[in-house]
């Protein structure tokens, strides 16, 4: 997994590069866009980019814009010290996610995983409890008996959304709007019904679900 990382602060740059390398990522770290253009050979295509906003020369937003122009499916995380909303909003309209300084490495790694899954650059097979989910082939294997679990289109879309947004708590509106592409109407039981059917197919004990967790009053979550 090739990661492009541009950060001008030497200590931070070296630290994050080391941490990412430790997490088995192949990191190409630069101090500025200028340096990146000078030393980077065109053959390498990145799987993800991490950009600091405040950089000498071209700033992070402009770099993000240029990278996206060349490679639209490149997920980009912005590192910003400015937690002001305008900055976040501007960043999010170009980049796919942002992390505010002073960040923890775990936070960056978690966001990277989410983005890599979302952009389908992650490993093809993801294991959740007794399931092996192949995001490319859209197949689900029950490792207990090595049988494939067949889901309807909507059930798979739901599960896929859960996995792509693994470890996040998803609200009913969020899920409904993502999977059905329609505005969620209060009291609509469609989502609950689909989750019940999904659980019946994938959970070992559907009355005590372990894969699709219910967070009371808030939403649902799939832990990876």
């Amino acid at each position, binding site marked *: 997994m090739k990661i492009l990382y541009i950060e001008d*602060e030497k*200590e*931070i740059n*070296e*630290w*994050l590069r080391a*941490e990412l390398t430790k997490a088995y990522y192949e990191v190409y770290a630069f101090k500025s866009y200028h340096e990146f253009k000078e030393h980077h050979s065109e053959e390498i295509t990145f799987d993800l980019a991490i950009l600091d906003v*405040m950089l000498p020369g071209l700033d992070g937003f402009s770099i993000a814009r240029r990278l996206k122009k060349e490679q639209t499916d490149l997920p980009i995380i912005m590192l910003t*010290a*400015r*937690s*002001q*909303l305008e*900055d976040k*909003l501007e960043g999010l309209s170009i980049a796919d996610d942002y992390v*505010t*300084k*002073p*960040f*923890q*490495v775990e936070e960056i790694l978690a966001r990277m995983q989410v983005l890599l899954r979302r952009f389908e650059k992650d490993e093809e097979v993801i294991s959740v409890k007794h399931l092996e989910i192949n995001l490319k082939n859209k197949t689900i294997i029950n490792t207990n008996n090595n049988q494939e679990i067949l889901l309807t289109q909507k059930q798979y879309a739901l599960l896929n959304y859960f996995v792509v947004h693994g*470890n*996040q*708590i*998803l*609200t*009913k*509106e*969020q899920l409904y709007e993502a999977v059905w592409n329609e505005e969620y109407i*209060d009291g609509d039981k469609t989502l609950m019904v689909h989750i019940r059917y999904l659980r019946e197919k994938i959970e070992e004990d559907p009355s005590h679900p372990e894969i699709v967790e219910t*967070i*009371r*009053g*808030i*939403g649902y979550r799939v832990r990876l």
Partner: protein
Amino acid sequence: MKKIANSLFFRFIVLIVIALVFLQTVMLLYLFSANFEKMKNNQLNLTQIEEKWTNDVKEATPDSIDKIVEKWHSRFEKSQYFYVDGQGELQKEWYIQIDESLPKIWDTMKTTRFIQEHYDAKLYTVIRFVGDKEENGFLVLQILRDEVTPTKVDNSFIYIGGIFLILYLIISFIFFFKIIKRLVRLEKAMTVRENGLPVHTKIAKKDEIGKVEVAFNQMIDELEEAKEKQEEEEQLRKELIANLSHDLKTPLTKIRAASHDIPKENQYLIDQNIDKMSELIDNLMSYTLLTADKVTFELEEKRIDRLVNQSIALWYPVFEESDFEVEVELEQTTWVVDDNQFSRVLDNVFQNVLRHADRGKYLGIFLKDNCLVIQDKGPGIEAHSENKGAGIGLNVIDLMTSKMFLSFKIESNQLGTKIMLKEKD
């Protein structure tokens, strides 16, 4: 000279002069037209007509009556005639326009009645004996009074005078209407706001109002300049604060970077304090921007239950990690808020609970009856001995909520803290 011609004063004087000239003209016209009308009627008034008629008939004989009638009729179109002979028999009628059914036989009584009826009547009537002899009978002339009396002169005078008066009123009206229109336009330019400033007005003329308009536009130019300058300064200040935050947070990140290989226990302490410091910087920044009115609030009707739901969904894992019991009950509720700023308020509240109410291990979020209650079972705000920074966080919440017209109340004792948000009435 041109300057004088451009002034309103000059034009007003012109208007007055027109009025005076008009009065004079009307008076002259009256005299002139009266004379003119007289001339048109062969300079004859009724007395003169009577005199002439008497003369003409006195010299006539019954045979020459026709000639006299023709002569008179050619002069007075609206005249009629009849002849009664010596025996009192109606012999002939000419050019009868108003038929009065004249009697065939004229005796003394009928003649007297006729004279009585025509005294001062519509038809001016003159009766004369032909050749001044009774045996020749009499010839009667009847002329419509309208043709000989100068009422026509009065009519035309009123007519022309009226036109002049209306014309004068129109000119005056246009004069004042134009002035009023320009004043109203100026007033509009003063009251209308574009980007918070009055707008430029069109300069139509170089008179006194025109000068006011020029001065007004100059004033707006200066205002615009001042505003631009102020905005630039504001932007600079914003940038400065943002950069300051960057400058403060970069070393914090460096501290974190440097602490990655020291013993775990110390690292935890450093991490915790880095987060606290970062939060303080954020709050300080928000506080500065909010008190300086530099944060824009886009108020819209929003579903508060959904906003709270989204926010707690993000925070839940953190509370879960700290073994909090999280209780959530959200009723469908709509308030007018800026959703981003409202989420920040919630972030601040949750951050506070996480930091200060760890002992209670409880977070309750209830949205009921148009009131959002966020409750913990911590030691209460008074007990925040080691976290003095909580004050600024609460101040930021207070400022943000008041900008969204929400009331913000805290109830706190040693058993816990209750934060209540409501729409202001």
